[in-house]
């Protein structure tokens, strides 16, 4: 529906435009700028063309980080989405317990990311942490500081603990919007629990699931704070994900050019994969 046009309204948008230009577009352009040049400090720049991009693309170290990143994101999506749906399906629909569950579910989402890292860092410590100490006493070999498998498991469990709530809450909202008549009709049609899920709940949750998958994918693909606090990317490079690697490159080694090129590629990869998710899921929705 088009409304009568009044161009003066655009003036009201100007402050926001200025803010966005200053906070988003300028830094991005700076990054583009850096990615095409070489510098030795002192504000001296040399044209480098696409050299940094080639270097980044051919770097084994970055390829390895990208591999780890994809495995990580795929794993947490594979766990959090079904688990979130499962929790949402089993939450009470109304009454005091519904409110109680909502509050409990929201709790992990309220904790700052670095605190989440710290909590698990302490929790998993073999000497004083409840988890690490107990496991060790039970004879399980667990030490995330020097065992890559333990480090991975800890980070994944931490992420699931932190973010499954988000998926569950989104799905819960989707489920709440289904009119009661659908469930009554299904009972009368003698539909099994699985069919109710497959033909009523899942189609009605499709919209929120898309949002959940996109949010969780983008967030997990950019994960930095928690593993940085927990493992610092170790042991060795076992948990060095893309953003940790990027920071190492930019701040630790001060390789500004490659880091800028890396950032741009990183950004494009996220955009591309998000787009793929979006297309596939909306298509699938039609086909469901």
């Amino acid at each position, binding site marked *: 529906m088009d409304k009568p046009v009044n161009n003066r309204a655009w003036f009201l948008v100007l402050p926001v435009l200025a803010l966005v230009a200053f906070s988003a577009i300028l830094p991005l352009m700076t990054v583009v700028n850096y990615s095409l040049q070489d510098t030795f400090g002192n504000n001296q720049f040399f044209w480098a063309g696409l050299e940094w991009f080639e270097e980044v693309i051919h770097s084994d170290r970055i390829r390895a980080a990208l591999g780890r990143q994809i495995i990580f994101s795929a794993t947490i999506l594979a766990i959090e989405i079904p688990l979130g749906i499962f929790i949402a399906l089993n939450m009470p629909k109304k009454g005091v317990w519904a409110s109680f569950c909502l509050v409990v579910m929201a709790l992990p989402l309220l904790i700052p990311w670095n605190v989440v890292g710290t909590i698990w860092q302490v929790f998993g410590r073999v000497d004083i942490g409840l988890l690490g100490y107990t496991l060790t006493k039970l004879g399980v070999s667990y030490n995330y500081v020097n065992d890559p498998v333990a480090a991975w498991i800890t980070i994944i469990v931490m992420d699931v603990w932190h973010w499954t709530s988000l998926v569950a809450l989104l799905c819960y909202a989707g489920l709440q919007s289904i*009119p009661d*008549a659908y469930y*009554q*009709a299904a009972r*009368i*049609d003698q*539909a*099994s629990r699985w069919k109710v899920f497959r*033909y009523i709940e899942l*189609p009605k949750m499709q919209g929120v699931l898309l949002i959940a998958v996109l949010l969780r994918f983008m967030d997990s693909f950019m994960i930095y704070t928690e593993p940085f606090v927990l493992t610092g990317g170790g042991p060795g490079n076992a948990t060095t994900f893309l953003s940790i690697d990027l920071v190492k490159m930019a701040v630790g080694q001060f390789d500004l050019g490659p880091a800028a090129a890396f950032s741009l590629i990183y950004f494009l990869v996220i955009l591309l994969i998000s787009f793929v998710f979006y297309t596939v899921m909306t298509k699938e929705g039609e086909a469901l």
Partner: protein
Amino acid sequence: MTRITLENLAHSYLPNPSKDDDWALKPMDMVWQDGGAYALLGSSGCGKSTLLNIISGLLVPSQGRILFGERDVTALPTLERNIAQVFQFPVVYDTMSVRDNLAFPLKNRGLPADQIAARVAEVAEMIGMSATLDRRARGLTADAKQKISLGRGMVRQDVNAILFDEPLTVIDPHMKWELRTQLKDLHRRFGHTMIYVTHDQTEALTFADQVVVMYDGRVVQAGTPQALFEAPEHTFVGYFIGSPGMNLLEARIEGATAHVAGARITLAQGYGPLDGRTQIGIRPEFLRLGTGDEGLPFTIRRIEDVGHHRIVRGQVDGTEVNVVVPESQPLPADADRVVPDPAHLHVYRDDWRVDPARRERAA
């Protein structure tokens, strides 16, 4: 297919009902014959949906029993009652094709594929959707979706009853005609017991052989459309059935004479002494406009031309009274009286109809 019996059935949403008002559904007895077409008619909040939910098993009544045939199903869940239900808003499985939607209740019951296919084809033919069987249900119009819901209700042949909960709410007037006629037709062809809940008198009267009028949690009258129109047992029925409803005037009854608004009206029968609030009721269709000193004094306020008749709205001694005049009859220009037809005039005491004949029989 089964006879449905309600025995001393009542329901309250409160844990310990004490007052009359606490009951959403006041104690009632009723028998619905196998293969009948019934309507539950009333305004919102009258208890008709509560009753429907008790029959479908979504609600367990606070007291009384409900029998399907000889079997007590009061505590049985919906699934075991073997009923079908069509809801107010279309319930379709969006992601399935029309065909799968119709086949769904049969597939769930494990019928052989060839039987399912035959039955689905038959139902699709009935609801006029044979050509769209392979379309996805999503994106169809509300009309079409509601037709699918109706079809899913019809598809099982072994059901005890089919319940309709205001199924034509979202349908256009012209389409309502078509769907209602189809329902009638289906009822005649398959003889299912059908219970139809609605607030729309036209739908109730045209659909059902027996209409149950509910008011304030109570059944005020159950009868044929004709009985409800000609002899409303309660003033609410008089008001609720007919457009406009029955005219009611405060009256003093003396034998076969009613004293109304300073005038006398001769009644068809004599009445014994009546205490309480007495009123006479007459439908707008049975009032005639007149002049001089016949009937009752009447002042015309407004005339509405409704096509095949006119509604003359006015007052008798401060009470609103409507008269219906057929299209073919001229309106007397100087009409200042209304004349009731004694054969269709009823006397009400405290809102319930007084039947002198019955009193004689009883005596």
